[in-house]
Each structure stands twice: as structure tokens, then as C-alpha cells.
């Protein structure tokens, strides 16, 4: 080996890059002032943002949080802009509507339990057993929010237990079709004829009750979240089934699904909400009062499911046929290949579409103010009609926008997290 004496034997210490080639200066140079056009655009934008921000801050930064009416803001020489007093004064209403003050802990509790129930659905790091709580949650929340005897929701739950039990017992002996049919029939009979009397009787013996709260007293953000979350949770499975039905080989199933999807997508949500609030009453037997809130949830669910079905169909169409064939070739039946191979991939492709669908649904819940429900928009209209707060506008809508933004921003962050987590290629 030759002796290369000119080779340096120890490394030089690293030196900081010359000024302007590092950190914030470099970033500014490459991103904002990389050329003449870019520099001009940057300067103009900065000036515009500065002017806007200044105006907004001057308008918004006001010592008006304690004032009790528009008049008071007007009379106060220190207040020259926003009249924030309306927010603390009406905060409770904007959150809970006319839900009785002493019972509002029930809403808060439902909300915290909801977070606990959703967590195992959203994150698979949480022990799988927690999903049972998620399944129970709707019954718990129903009882907490509407009150009355706890035995009502338990009786409803018992219907599912009956169906499950019948299917477990009968399937091995009599086959799947007999088992499932009997199970569903038994559950229906239970719900229609036995559930109510049974819950009344049990409640007579062991009364566990909460004060009844009528749907019309539920309002504000609570109402939006109830409609939004129920709509999301219910429309997801329905949308997936519709998407599969649309691809089905069975003619009737296909026609029904296509017909439903195209009908719902062809009609504005407001029309459907009016149908829910007015028309449905004509179809129901006289004397039955089918809760308006429940009707709205059903309509919103169906509406969202139709759109979701199309989003999921897009995901299904994007899958190469090789995936279906490989699943078939391994001997997986239709439902197993859908559940294990096709849907996980189709849903993954559709995540952005599904989440924007849900964000849209959540914001569309404010349309229910048109049929007289007191969601935040409905309440704002009511508040603006009072003597104290006549003429107030921006303050309330900014607050409302902020509340909705928190939810929708969380949803869109979650979708990005999920996409990153499910990425398996290189």
C-alpha cells in the first residue's frame, strides 16, 4: 500500500453555515424572496395581512366582556368595537339550549363518556375490550340526556341480547338462515310488545330514574353534537352497505341501492328536513308522536349515507381486480373478502372523502334551525331578537365559528393521522 501522507487524519470540527444560509434567514430567502415576483407578492401579502389584522384586533380587543346589553356597550366610552358581553351571558344557552340548569351535568358527563367511547374506535392502541363500552355508550347517553327510567334503554339493549342469544343457539342446530330470522323476529316482538311493559314493571320494583328532559329543550352545541355524532356513527355502516349493494350481482339489491342513493343525492337536505318535520307526521298513525329530533337524526343519517356510499364506491373502484381475485382464489367467501381484504383498502383510499363528508354533515346540522330546532344558529337568531342584544352580529357568529372549527379541525387532523398510520408502501 502506498503512503498517502497528504490525507488528513482527523476530521475538522463542523462549522456553522455562513449567515443567510441557515435557519430563518434561509427559509425566508427560499420561500418568500426567491425572485422578484415572489418578493413583490410577499411584500403585498404582508401589508394586506397587517392592515386586516390591525383592524380586527382593534375591533376585537375591547373591555366589553362584562357588559350586559348592546345599550351598555354603546354607552361605555371605552368600548369602541366588539360587544363581547353577550358570550358569557348566553354561554350556557349556546352550549345547552334550554336544558334545565340543575341537570346539565348529565350533558357534560355524556360528553366525557363519549370521548371515552370514541377513543377505542379511533385509536387501536387502546385495549380492544374497550370497544364493548363504545357499543354500550349509545344506551347510556340516551338515558343520561333524555332521562326517565334506566330500564327503558336496558330493555332496548335486551332486544339485541335476545337476538344474539337466539342466533347463537339456533345457528348450529338449524342453520344460519333460520337462526338469524328467528333472532330478528324475537327481538322485534320483544321491542314492540314486551320491552315497554317489562321496563315499567322492573322500574316499579327497582326505580332508577333521572328527570325527564324533552327534546325541544335540548339545544345549542349539544344539539349539533347529538345530531352530528349520531349521523356520523349511523351513516358510516349504512353508507358502506349501500356502496356494496350498488356493486352487487343481485339485481333487486342493486336497483334499490342505486335508486336510494340517486334519490337522496338529488334532493336538498333542507327539503328532507321539512319532510321530516312536517310530512312524516301524516304517515304516522295518529296519536303517535315521533320525536322531531329523532326524525332529524334519521334524515341526516340517510342523507349522509348516500354521499358516503359514493365516496366508498370510489375507493372500491380504485382497487385492482387482482385483490378480489386473490381473495377468491384463497377460498374466502364474499363477506370475508369484503371485510378482510377489500373494505380495509377501499376505506383507506376513501379516508379524505369520508372525513370531508362527515365535516360537511357536522356543519349541515345548523340547517335544523330552519325547522325550528334550537341549534346554535337558531339560538343566535333568538338572541338577536331580544331587547338587550338587538343588532348584535359578529360576536355571536365568530364564537359559533370557533366552536365548530374546533370539532372540524380535530376531524381533519385525525384523518391526516390515520392516513399516515395506514401507509404501508414505501
Amino acid at each position: 500500500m502506498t503512503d498517502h501522507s497528504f490525507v488528513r487524519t482527523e476530521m475538522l470540527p463542523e462549522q456553522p453555515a455562513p449567515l443567510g444560509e441557515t435557519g430563518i434567514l434561509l427559509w425566508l430567502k427560499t420561500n418568500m424572496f426567491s425572485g422578484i415576483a415572489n418578493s413583490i407578492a410577499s411584500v403585498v401579502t404582508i401589508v394586506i395581512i397587517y392592515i386586516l389584522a390591525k383592524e380586527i384586533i382593534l375591533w376585537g380587543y375591547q373591555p366589553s366582556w362584562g357588559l350586559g346589553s348592546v345599550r351598555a356597550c354603546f354607552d361605555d366610552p371605552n368600548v369602541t368595537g366588539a360587544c363581547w358581553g353577550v358570550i358569557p351571558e348566553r354561554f350556557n344557552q349556546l352550549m345547552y339550549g334550554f336544558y334545565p340548569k340543575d341537570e346539565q351535568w348529565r350533558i357534560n358527563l355524556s360528553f366525557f363518556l363519549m370521548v371515552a367511547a370514541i377513543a377505542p374506535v379511533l385509536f387501536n392502541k387502546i385495549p380492544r375490550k374497550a370497544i364493548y363500552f363504545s357499543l354500550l355508550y349509545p344506551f347510556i347517553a340516551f338515558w343520561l340526556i333524555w332521562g326517565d327510567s334506566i330500564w327503558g334503554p336496558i330493555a332496548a339493549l335486551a332486544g339485541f341480547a335476545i337476538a344474539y342469544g337466539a342466533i347463537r343457539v339456533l345457528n348450529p342446530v338449524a342453520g344460519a338462515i333460520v337462526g338469524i330470522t328467528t333472532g330478528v323476529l324475537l327481538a322485534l316482538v320483544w321491542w314492540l310488545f314486551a320491552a315497554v311493559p317489562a321496563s315499567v314493571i322492573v322500574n316499579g320494583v327497582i326505580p332508577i330514574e333521572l328527570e325527564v328532559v324533552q327534546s325541544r329543550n335540548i339545544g345549542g352545541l349539544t344539539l349539533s353534537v347529538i345530531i352530528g355524532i349520531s349521523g356520523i356513527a349511523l351513516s358510516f355502516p349504512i353508507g358502506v352497505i349501500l356502496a356494496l349493494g350498488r356493486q352487487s350481482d343481485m339485481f333487486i339489491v342493486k336497483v334499490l341501492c342505486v335508486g336510494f342513493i340517486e334519490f337522496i343525492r338529488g334532493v336538498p337536505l333542507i327539503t328532507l328536513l321539512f319532510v321530516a318535520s312536517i310530512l312524516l307526521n301524516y304517515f304516522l298513525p295518529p296519536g303517535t308522536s315521533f320525536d322531531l329530533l329523532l326524525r332529524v337524526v334519521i334524515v341526516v343519517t340517510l342523507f349522509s349515507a348516500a354521499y358516503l356510499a359514493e365516496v366508498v364506491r370510489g375507493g372500491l373502484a380504485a382497487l385492482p381486480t387482482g385483490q378480489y381475485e386473490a381473495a377468491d382464489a384463497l377460498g374466502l367467501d364474499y363477506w370475508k373478502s369484503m371485510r378482510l381484504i377489500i373494505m380495509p383498502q377501499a376505506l383507506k383510499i376513501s379516508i379524505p372523502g369520508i372525513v370531508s363528508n362527515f365535516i360537511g354533515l357536522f356543519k349541515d346540522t345548523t340547517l335544523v334551525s330552519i325547522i325550528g330546532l334550537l341549534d346554535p344558529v337558531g339560538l343566535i337568531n333568538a338572541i338577536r331578537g331580544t331587547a338587550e342584544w338587538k343588532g348584535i352580529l359578529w360576536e355571536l357568529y365568530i364564537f359559533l365559528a370557533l366552536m365548530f372549527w374546533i370539532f372540524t379541525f380535530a376531524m381533519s387532523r385525525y384523518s391526516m393521522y390515520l392516513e399516515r398510520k395506514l401507509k404501508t408502501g414505501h
Partner: protein
Amino acid sequence: MSEAIKKVAMEVSDEVAIQITDMNKWYGDFHVLKDINITVNRGERIVVCGPSGSGKSTLIRCINRLEVHQRGKIVVDGTELTSDLKNIDKIRSEVGMCFQHFNLFPHLTILENCTLAPIWVRKTPKKEAEEIAMHFLEKVKIPEQALKYPGQLSGGQQQRVAIARSLCMKPRIMLFDEPTSALDPEMIAEVLDTMVELAEEGMTMIVVTHEMGFARKVANRVIFMDQGQIVEQNEPEEFFNNPKSERTQLFLSQILGH
């Protein structure tokens, strides 16, 4: 081609594995498969070749009913393929298939790809299924990739995983549809080696391929198809050295390049 090719020894039994009788298939008006008759005994290795569009893929896809034939009869392991779903699922779980584009499930790890069907179709306990999967992954020489996703593997590795995935179902018959034609030359060998090993263990195989070296070494019969018909079938030596029909001669001269 003077050098002696070491033939894979074979033990062909009298038992019939696949019996195809007067099978016909149409795509709309287009008659893809015409009066196909093939009998495959257990332990046989059949190579199917022929020009593009001649119906090779369609033929082997009829055997596990990825395609439905309209006339004639296909009997696999004594079970006739009809529209009865029970029979189809049974046959599919006994007939493994490897595709040109591997068709691994990209959302599952290599190990999960291999254990999925045993667990859900055969109801094998998870632990046992994983042991079986590792056994076959070792056999195709990639056990160290078990926890990766298909997207992180090379084409040759993916195809070997696809073979392992099929083997995990302990199939009695394996179908291959151009398993090496989507691969770079240096990866073809590793996949063919795996297939040769499989042949040495006596697996009944039907392979659609244009790898004539593989055919000479492994096949006990080569079937040549053109325009939906079986034009000629023979032992590899006879088939390559002494093709009977003109169409076969033309095809061989094109594919062997002289």
C-alpha cells in the same frame, strides 16, 4: 441446446387430479376456449404456452372458477365445478393460485398475508397458522421479511411470498399464471428455483409460462394453445425437438429466437 438438462424426477400416480371434458367458454360472442379436453394426474407438472390472447389465463382461471365456463365439465379432486358455492369454496381452498402481478394484500404484513386464509377459511388457530406461515416463508427463503409490508419487497420476493401464501393453505394443486413475466431477469431465477423445489416435492402444477428452460426441466407435458384451442401436447423433449404442427413450430421459432 445440447447441454443435458437435469430433469426433476417425478412420480405420477394414476389418480386423476383435474379432468376437463369438452369445455367451452365465451366472452359475449367471442369464443375464447373451444372444446378443451385435459386430464391431469396427481403429481403431474403441466406447462401451458401459446401466443398472447390464446386463452391460457382463461383456461387456468376456469379451474378455480375465477372464470365461469359455459359448456362442458371440469372436475377437480373429484368435485365438479358448478354454480354451487360450497363446491367452489372447497375447490378454491384446495387449489392454490399465483398471479402474474402477485396480488399480495398491501395492507397486511407478509406474515398476515400468509395466515389470513388459514385462519379465516380453515379456522386454524392463530399461533399454529403463524408457525405454518413461517415454515413456508423459510422454504421460499424470506423468513426475515415476515413483518414487512408487500410494498417494501422486491418483485421476486413478492412472488415468493405469494407462493408461500398459497402453500399455507396446503393445496393439492397449484396454478401459476405467468409468475415470472412481470419480473426483472435477475429475479426470475429465484422464483423459478422455488417452483422447481415445489415440483420436486411432487406438487401437481399447471404453469402458464414462456420459460422454456423451466418447461424442459420440470414439465412432464407441455400444452400449446392457439386461438382458444389445444393445438398440441407432448412430452417436453418431443415438443421442443420435434413439434408436429406448423403453428407450434412458428411459435417455438419466435420464442426461442431461431
